[in-house]
């Protein structure tokens, strides 16, 4: 349970699986749809996050007009909502889209 400070301390005791043993895409006969959806949505989410960072950087740098900021923000917001909607349809949480790329780390970090 989180404590009032917002810090949850959890010593490693075998109950948690450490980094590196995270889930993999399952593409067996029963889960092929979900596996493919996970892969496709993960890549779209990666692109969305890259675009978002770039948009914020450009907004901070003053190189976007008010109209462009509004348009970019709306597009990214709609995309995020759509990714959530599709994720829900396939039973995927945002954390599921952060694929473990082995020695390269996680996709969205």
């Amino acid at each position, binding site marked *: 349970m989180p404590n009032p400070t*917002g810090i949850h301390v959890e010593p490693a*005791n*075998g109950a948690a699986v*450490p980094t590196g*043993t995270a889930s993999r895409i399952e593409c067996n006969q029963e889960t092929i749809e979900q596996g493919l959806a996970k892969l496709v949505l993960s890549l779209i989410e990666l692109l969305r996050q890259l675009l978002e960072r770039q948009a914020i950087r450009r*907004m901070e740098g003053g190189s976007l007009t008010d109209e462009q*900021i*509004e348009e970019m*923000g709306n597009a990214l917001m709609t995309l995020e909502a759509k990714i959530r909607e599709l994720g829900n349809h396939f039973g995927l949480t*945002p954390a599921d889209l952060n694929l473990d790329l082995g020695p390269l780390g996680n996709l969205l970090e």
Partner: protein
Amino acid sequence: MPLLAYCIAEPGSNIEVPLRGVQGVPPSTIIESGLICFLSEYEPSGVNSTHVREAALAFNRVLQELLGQTAIVPFRFPTLLGDEAEIRTFLQHHAAHYRDLLGRLRDVVQIEINLTINKSSQPSGSGREYLLARQHLNRTLADAATLIRRYLGAQIRDWRQSQSSSATRCYMLVSRDDLKSTFEKFRELKIASELQARVTGPWPATDFIALPPDEHENSLQSSAPPVTTKPYA
């Protein structure tokens, strides 16, 4: 039967090998080129997702038991080998790299902090408001990571962090002697109200382990097999 590799460590006469490993099989050891490797027989056929989870937890328990005694370089789960000769060849090839690495990690362990946003709200408002809210969250996460790093100060031997749009992961190396006091300090730490921090550890220092140069090149090839003989390093 294939062999499941757990980890590599520096050999020492006082290392107690865990009695129970994955699938209930007691791990065995081989010593090669100044390194010790922990292995057990593994039956991969007929393993469903429940068994995989149990196996992953058992694997982790072995690593934790060993980490409590010495520095380790874990293999990814499940790393399967045809026979002992495979791991001997691997250790012979990379002995210098791993001996050096284990020497440097001898007295430290890794702690992880996952900083996340409290509420994952549905996006709403204008486009500008959306981007400004994102900007604010990014800054809040980055500031919290900086605060934690400063707060722990000299207790941190090394630090890495990575940020996504809704979370920041911080990895730190802490001396084994400072582990208890570091966890105590975390309990007293206060962060921004819109954030949650999950602190876990001690873990093997996997985020501070560099691949041997030739292994790194191989790992970047998309044709690399899903099961390899490579440790995290």
